[in-house]
C-alpha cells in the first residue's frame, strides 16, 4: 500500500496499462513536457516515446476523430481533452462516430477508446472550465460513462476503461486531483465498470452521488449520524451503466432516496435515477443539484453554486420529517 493522489494514481494506472499492452497510447495537448494538467501523464513520454504519448495541435475534433480512426484500426487510444468543456468541440466525433460505428457497421467494428475529459469545479476557473456535463453522455447509446471518486478507483477504473472494447467517456473530477488515498500497487485488477461502492452504510435514507460530491455527501452523513440519523451513501462510480441493483437494494432497505450531484439539477442524471427508483419502488425521492447557472468566478459566487453538506443534511431531515 502507498499513499498517492488521484492524479498520481491515474498516472500509475495508465503506465501499467501501457506497459502491459503496446497498442495502448494517448494523444492530446501538452502531454509531454507538461505531463497533463495535473501531472497525470508526467514523464510517460520519456518512457514510452513520442509515438505513444503524442503531443497534438489544438485540434479537438481531430484528437477525438483520430482516436476513433485509430481504434478502428487496431489500437487502444486515450484521447485527452483536458476539460469536458473543450471536449464539446469534439462531441460530433464522439457521438456520431465513436458511439455508433459498431452499430452502424453491423458489428464489424469495435471502438476501444477512452475519451478523457475532466469535469467539475476546481476553484476560480469559471464558466468554460468548470462544467459537469456527464448527463449528456449517458443519453448516448454506445457510450460508457465513468466518474471516478478516489485515487484507488481512478487507477482501477482507468484500467477498466482502457481494457473495455466500448468507447468510454472518462470524467475525472478536477477538484479531486490532489485528493490523497491508499493504493495497493501490487493489485493489478481493474475496478469493475457498472458497479457502485457503498461508502457508508445506513438505514434511514440512501444518498446516491458520484465524483467530488460523494465526499460532501459523506460529510453530511457523518454530521447526521451525530443527530441519530442513519444515512447510506453510495458512490455510483459509473453512470452508464449505473448499478441499478445496488441502488434498488439500498433504497429497498432505507425507503428513501436523495440523489446529489454537482451538475445542474435540470436535466441532470439524478432525474433518471430518481425516476427509475420511484417507478420501481414507489418511495419518496428527491434531487439536489446545481442551479441552472454558468459556474461563476468570484469566490462567494462559486461557493453559492455548490451543494454544501449542511444543505444536504437539511434536505435529508426534511425528507425524514
Amino acid at each position, binding site marked *: 500500500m502507498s499513499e498517492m493522489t488521484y492524479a498520481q494514481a491515474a498516472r500509475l494506472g495508465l503506465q501499467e496499462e501501457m506497459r502491459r499492452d503496446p497498442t495502448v497510447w494517448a*494523444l492530446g495537448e501538452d502531454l509531454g513536457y507538461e505531463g497533463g494538467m495535473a501531472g497525470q501523464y508526467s514523464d510517460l513520454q520519456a518512457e514510452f516515446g513520442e509515438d505513444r504519448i503524442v503531443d497534438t495541435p489544438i485540434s479537438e475534433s481531430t484528437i477525438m476523430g483520430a*482516436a476513433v480512426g485509430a481504434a478502428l484500426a487496431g489500437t487502444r487510444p486515450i484521447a485527452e481533452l483536458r476539460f469536458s468543456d473543450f471536449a464539446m468541440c469534439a462531441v460530433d466525433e464522439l457521438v456520431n462516430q465513436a458511439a455508433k460505428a459498431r452499430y452502424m457497421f453491423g458489428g464489424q467494428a469495435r471502438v476501444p477508446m477512452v475519451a478523457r475529459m475532466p469535469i467539475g469545479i476546481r476553484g476560480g476557473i469559471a464558466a468554460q472550465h468548470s462544467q459537469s456535463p456527464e448527463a449528456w453522455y449517458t443519453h448516448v447509446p454506445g457510450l460508457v460513462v465513468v466518474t471516478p471518486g478516489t485515487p484507488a478507483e481512478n487507477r482501477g477504473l482507468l484500467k477498466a476503461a482502457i481494457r473495455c472494447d*466500448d468507447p468510454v467517456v472518462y470524467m475525472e473530477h478536477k477538484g479531486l486531483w490532489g485528493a490523497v488515498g491508499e493504493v495497493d500497487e501490487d493489485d493489478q485488477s481493474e475496478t469493475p465498470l457498472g458497479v457502485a461502492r457503498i461508502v457508508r452504510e445506513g438505514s434511514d435514507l440512501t444518498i446516491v452521488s458520484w465524483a467530488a460530491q460523494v465526499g460532501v455527501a459523506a460529510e453530511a452523513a457523518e454530521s447526521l449520524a451525530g443527530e441519530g440519523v442513519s444515512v447510506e451513501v453510495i458512490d455510483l462510480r459509473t453512470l452508464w451503466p449505473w448499478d441499478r441493483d445496488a441502488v434498488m437494494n439500498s433504497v429497498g432497505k432505507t425507503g428513501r432516496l436523495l440523489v446529489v450531484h454537482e451538475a445542474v439539477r435540470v436535466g441532470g442524471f439524478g432525474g433518471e435515477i430518481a425516476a427509475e427508483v420511484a417507478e420501481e419502488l414507489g418511495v419518496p425521492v428527491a434531487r439536489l443539484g446545481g442551479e441552472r447557472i454558468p459556474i461563476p468566478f468570484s469566490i462567494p459566487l462559486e461557493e453559492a453554486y455548490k451543494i454544501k453538506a449542511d444543505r444536504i443534511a437539511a434536505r435529508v431531515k426534511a425528507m425524514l420529517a
Partner: protein
Amino acid sequence: MNNETLVNEPARVIAMYRKMLVIRAFEEAAGENFFAGNVRGSVHQYIGEESIAVGICENLRDDDYLMSNHRGHGHSIAKGAHPRAMMLELFGKEGGTSNGKGGSMHIADFSVGMLGANGVIADGCTMSVGAAQAIKLLKQDRIIVNFIGDGGINRGPFMEALNWAKVYELPVLFVCENNQIAATTTTRLVTAGEGIAKRAESFDVPAVTIDGNDLFEVDGTAARIISEIRNGSGPQLIQAMTYRLRGHFAHDDAGYRPAGEAEAALKNEPVARTETWLLENGLKQDELDRMRAEVDAEIAGYVEDAKQAPWPHPSLAFTDVQDVGAPNVPEAAR
C-alpha cells in the same frame, strides 16, 4: 486520353472498366429501386465519377484502408466490398453489409479495409489520420485513402486533418472528388481562395489536380503517389475534377442546374470515355456489349436476391450497441 503514365495493358483496363460498369449498374439499380419503394432514405449515386474510385483503388492492396463519405457506393465496390451484400443493405435486409442496421450511408466492409461510408461531411478526414497513426504505431506498411467532396473542404476537420497528417508525416492519401457542387450549392461561390489544392499546399501537403474522368490519368497518378506514400513521402492530395451527372441524391432532379449542363457533360463521362479507348485499342463492340449485359444481369440478380432476402429479426435492433451497459431487448422484439 493521356496514357503515358499508365501501364495500360488491355487486361488491366478491361478489369477496371468492368468495375466501373458494376458501379454504374449498381447505382442505376439503387435509383430504380428507390423509386420503386424498395430502398429508403438518402441514396447518393456515384454516376459519372466511377473512374476515380476505380483508378485509385486499383492501386491499393487489400490490407490498405479506405475511409469514405456519404457518396460511398463506388468507393466500397472499388475497394472490394461485395455488391450483393451492399444491395441487401440498401434494401435493409438481413445479409446486408450491416444486416440492415446502416443502409446506404453506413456501408462498410472491414474484411477488405473499407472502414466505412459516413453521413457526416469531413469526419472521415480526422478518422483517417487516426487510422494512419495506428498504422505507424503498429509499424505496418499500409496506407489509407480518404475520399472527400469539394463541399467538405470548408469544414474545420478537413483543415485540422491536413495539418495533423503533415505534422506527423502520416501515410494518408486525401482524394478530393471535385464535382463542383455540394448538394445544391456551387462550391466555388462559398469557398474563399483558390480552393482545395491551394489549401493542401499551404500545409506543405503536395497536391495535384487531375481529370478525374480520365481513368488512365487517375490510375497513373494513383500508382505514383500511392507508391510514394508507402515509401514514406507523408500525406499527399489528389484533386480529381469530375461532374455529378445526377441529382445530389436519387430524389433530387437537380432543377437548380443550368439547362443542358448535365447533357453536355455526358460526352465527358468516364464509362463512355473508357469504352472509346477500348474500341480504339482492339476491343469489339459486341465484346463490350456482352460485358455490359453480364454486369447488368449480375446486378439484377442481386436486386432479386435483395427482394427475396428476409428482413432482419426485430431483436437485431438491440444488438451491437455496446458490451458494457448493453440495452435490453423489449418483449415485443424478442
